[in-house]
């Protein structure tokens, strides 16, 4: 069985799409990461800063821990535990998803403060 010309075109197209997609995300991301957004069933649950340590209980189903500038799903009551096994996220655009509980955790860019510094 040999590869046909169309097979190679298929491979190239898919690889190009994948690289393109990655570059787009790099373009959006790679800046100062900042805010952790938690959504449940498509609705906003809460926003938290990556710089501060938090332990967030999401609807009694998931526990998200923000520590050392990383967000990690610490506990979930779903059977597959895929979100718990997911590596901690910190970069802009990274996501942890818990499908059974419809929880989406996303990192987005920090909103720039309008003030450079505040002096008492």
């Amino acid at each position, binding site marked *: 069985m040999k590869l046909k010309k169309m097979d190679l075109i298929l491979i190239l197209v898919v690889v190009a799409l*994948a690289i393109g997609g990655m570059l787009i995300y790099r373009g959006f991301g790679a800046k100062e990461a900042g805010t952790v957004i938690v959504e449940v069933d*498509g609705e906003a649950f809460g926003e938290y800063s990556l710089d501060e340590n938090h332990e967030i209980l999401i609807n009694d189903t998931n526990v998200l821990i923000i520590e050392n500038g990383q967000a990690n799903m610490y506990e979930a009551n779903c059977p597959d535990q895929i979100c718990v096994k997911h590596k901690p996220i910190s970069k802009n655009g990274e996501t942890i*998803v818990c499908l059974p509980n419809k929880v989406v955790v996303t990192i987005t860019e920090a909103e720039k403060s309008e003030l450079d510094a505040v002096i008492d």
Partner: protein
Amino acid sequence: MKTRVAYFGVFTALALIFSYVESLIPINFGIPGIKLGLANLIIVIALYKMNIKEAYVLSVVRVVLAGFIFGNLFSIVYSLAGGLLSLTVMTLLKKSNKFSLFGISMAGGVFHNVGQLIVAMVVLESLNIAYYMPVLLISGLITGFVIGIVAGEMLKRLQNLRI
């Protein structure tokens, strides 16, 4: 007619066993959704050995049964979307006669992942998870290629099989 039913049963049993074997392999890439898709091997074989209608029925039957045995209702919905989109694309590519078994199998792997991600986007009402798309495209390509190699070897040995 009798042998058709028997072969259909064998194919279903094989697909279920592959689903089981797959659930035993404890690979975790840190990214959900990446797996070999061993059961798709049977679907590829069915694509070449059965007619289109039977391949679709086999695909649905195996997803529903495997879902009830090894998964849950969620996994059935995701697998069904992935399986049907993948089979539809593979059928079209096979009809075009411009792709080899590798191309068809790779397109199947890629669109299996794409179908599941689309359902995930709809269920979660979130576009953010498109972040996974590049990884899923490449992993679908690789697993599809592996499945293509194995399916090629199997089809060589199944040349005398007439269903």
